């Protein structure tokens, strides 16, 4: 059995499919969509692919430092725990749509949660 969820889901193709489902959910929710108003969609999708690859346990370039630097300007605009909760909720909903097991979804939520302090710029 392949060891990472990334491989079980189908590798890069799964990430490509997941990123569309996930990003549509984010853009359609007005509690978070305004964070993406002035952002180039292609760049954003590239970044989200990197993020999803990381939380799915695939090969990735993400580090705590890049999560911290990448979100610092959003923290200034009011990014807080409630928004991170929404991200984790939509990650779960996306994985459910793609047919992932509950156990895997919980694991992904835990990985996403582990960078919460970096994203929100806390010690």
């Amino acid at each position: 059995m392949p060891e990472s969820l990334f491989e079980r889901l189908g590798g890069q193709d799964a990430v490509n499919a997941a990123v569309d489902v996930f990003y549509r959910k984010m853009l359609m929710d007005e509690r978070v969509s305004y964070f993406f108003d002035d952002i180039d969609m292609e760049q954003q999708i590239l970044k989200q692919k990197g993020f999803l690859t990381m939380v799915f346990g695939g090969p990735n370039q993400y580090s705590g430092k890049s999560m911290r630097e990448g979100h610092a300007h959003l923290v200034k605009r009011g990014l807080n725990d409630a928004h991170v909760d929404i991200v984790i909720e939509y990650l779960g909903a996306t994985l459910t749509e793609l047919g992932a097991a509950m156990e895997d979804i919980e694991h992904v939520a835990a990985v996403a949660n582990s960078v919460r302090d970096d994203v929100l710029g806390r010690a």
Partner: protein
Amino acid sequence: MSTVAFKNQLYTLEPRESVLQCLLRHEVDYPNSCQAGICQSCLIKAKDGVVNSSWQEGLPETLKAQGYFLACLAKPEEPLQVTTPESAECEVSAQIINVKPLNYNVMQVTLRVDHLEHWVPGQYLSLINPDDTIRSYSIANIPMQEGFIELHVKIYPGGSMGQWLVNKATKHTEVKLRGPFGRCFYYNPEQLAFNMLLAGTGTGLAPLVAIIKSALSQNHQGTITLVHGGLSDEDIYYKEELEMLSMLFQSFVYDPCVLQSQGRYPEACIEKRALMHLNYPQETRVYVCGPKETTDKLKKQIFLAGVPSQAILSDVFL
């Protein structure tokens, strides 16, 4: 462990580190932006060492052949010696054939240049005039078939390139070109059938016309719909050519719209008009060009309407 030599300094790469990351980590202020192999800001040249073709994605063949690559994509396994791009190698000479108005603020510029096959319809190039002003414009035709490069240049009252073209440029004036760049072009080697929706405002029309001509000349299977938007009726140009194309090719639909009409075109914002034509979002490829405000909105609406992000191609005019 591998090394990068740049400007007489030797830097050691960490495992899985790119050339760009390595230079930045050592506080070398190398140009960069997207760090994802798209923007081409971090163009760099190998003087010695092995260049992997995966580091050269999207570069023109001429640059590839000369050892150019993107520093953000390169993770060399062997020592590499690099240098900043040399302008003489990235540029070619061209001559102005003609400059002629297409409407009140858009000029058509045609250029004579060698190796027309390099200039891919819909990609963009940097035009450099004798005053060393540099601006980017999209290729609006099929240079290989038509024998010249056509650009659509928007003329701004204080714009240095536009004013130079209107007031100083003459036939045979020598200019330099760099490029072509960008991923907004028709590429369908397997001749798949799909619908195409193209939307743009102002001179965003230029690459879209080139893409339509490419698709039609390659006998594209599927509908091709063009929505060209403007603020007022005067902003719509190239109408006769496009109406002619739609008469010649049944699969091609031309639908201009403006925000405030004096009666010549339907009144609509381009996002709404484009969405009207989006009947099978999952099976449609969308090409979007124009100023950032327009393309951002268009891309978002089209994506939310169900078009896969990978099927939305765009070059933003910056």
